[in-house]
């Protein structure tokens, strides 16, 4: 089966949507000494995947399903307000809410420029929609399914911090890549779990939290110098 190129573009870290400016909490975790080498990085990525990774993948899948439903019954813009509030409620850290919204805005600009689609216009009404909502809508616009949205989201939840770790800690890129390869089955498992929530009640979406990531995200704003925004 072909992997549709429009979806590969959304999963590509070279997508000009500002993702390179965010470390997913890796920079403050490294500064705090919580990640120092490849084994601690692997542990960090497993934890991030099971928490933030699961939540954002489920939101992306729900957003993708919502896009498809909204297209079927003309509009339903209110659904976006509901999903946006559900994303907020799952993101207690103001720094993480800001990072999610700023990446959402960048992604929306990139995908609307590259391939305009009516599904993306409803989100443009938000000043800065959350990243997983934009990703889910972009996957739907590219012809993908909620499962695709969950996969791309879960994949990005670990690859972003992994490449930040290579830059920040000067880790061996091959060893980091091996850690990612070992995580791949878990990425698929999280995506499958997340995708299962797509059509359900948004209130019941997973809400797995990572207390350390929350603390790191807020500490990061006080740190100088910073290489990454979050």
């Amino acid at each position, binding site marked *: 089966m072909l992997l549709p190129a429009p979806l590969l573009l959304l999963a590509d870290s070279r997508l000009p949507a500002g993702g390179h400016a965010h470390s997913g*909490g890796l920079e403050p*975790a490294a500064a705090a000494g*919580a*990640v120092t080498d490849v084994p*601690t990085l692997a*542990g*960090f*990525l*497993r*934890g*991030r995947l*099971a*928490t*933030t990774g699961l939540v954002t993948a489920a939101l992306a899948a729900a957003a993708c399903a919502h896009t498809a439903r909204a297209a079927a019954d003309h509009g339903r813009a209110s659904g976006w307000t509901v999903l946006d*509030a*559900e994303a*907020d*409620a*799952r*993101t*207690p*850290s*103001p*720094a993480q*809410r800001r990072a999610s919204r700023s990446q959402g805005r960048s992604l929306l600009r990139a995908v609307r420029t590259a391939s305009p689609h009516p599904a993306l216009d409803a989100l443009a009404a938000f000043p800065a929609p959350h990243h997983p909502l934009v990703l889910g809508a972009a996957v739907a616009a590219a012809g993908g399914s909620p499962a695709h949205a969950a996969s791309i989201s879960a994949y990005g939840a670990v690859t972003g911090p992994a490449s930040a770790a290579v830059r920040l800690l000067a880790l061996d890129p091959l060893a980091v890549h091996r850690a990612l390869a070992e995580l791949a089955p878990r990425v698929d498992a999280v995506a499958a779990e997340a995708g299962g929530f797509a059509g359900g009640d948004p*209130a019941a*979406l*997973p*809400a*797995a*939290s*990572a*207390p*350390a*990531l*929350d*603390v790191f*995200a*807020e*500490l990061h*704003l*006080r740190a100088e110098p910073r290489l990454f925004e979050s």
Partner: protein
Amino acid sequence: MTRHYTAHAAVRAERDGAGRVRLTRLRSDGPYALRATPDAVHLVGAAAGPLGGDELNLDLEVAAGAALAVRSVASTLLLPGPGESTTRVRAAVGHGAHLDLALEPAVAAAGCRHRAVTDFALEAGATLRWREELVLGRHGEPAGRYSGRVDVTVGGRPLLRNELRLPDPDLCTSGAVLGDARCTGNVLLVGPGLAAEPYAADGLAVMPLAGPGVLVTALAPDSATLRRRLRHGEERART
């Protein structure tokens, strides 16, 4: 034969015509024995546990204009047993009412399989203080499996949905989740006039939510440090 508890305790506080708060319902059940004192309703553990298989429910209702504080006299030890143990708190807080729910820590003993579910439904204009503390294992032992989820809505809108899933030690010790902390906890404040600016220190974050509340999250090596950090965070959240 193992005996399981399925208990359903309940408290309802109302404000009478003279402006006094009355407990119009105080129902103890199984391990949940409730004692009313002038300051608070106390949860007195009348049995060990919960043990695996137990299902303990606590319903709290604070009617418009009333105030209720709920405390416990000792920490709760989550113990293994056949099956999963569950504690469920459902709280409804009316307009102009205040609920202050702060129980002593839960200790996830080795081998436990516990799920804690907490639901707060606040009407617009209701206020809340909620503290939860979790200790991962008794001294020198690894914690069992624990998951806890809290859902808070204000006027039907979601304010906070927060879940701690610790299915295995591997995930606990992830630098993204708890790192080397053995204790974690939260204080949630809901209401007007709370801090608008976040604050962070070692093992502590004070996070203004998108809605009318502030979540204080702390991580600590021991329960005394956890309590101190949460207290400090709560002070910051109120300034």
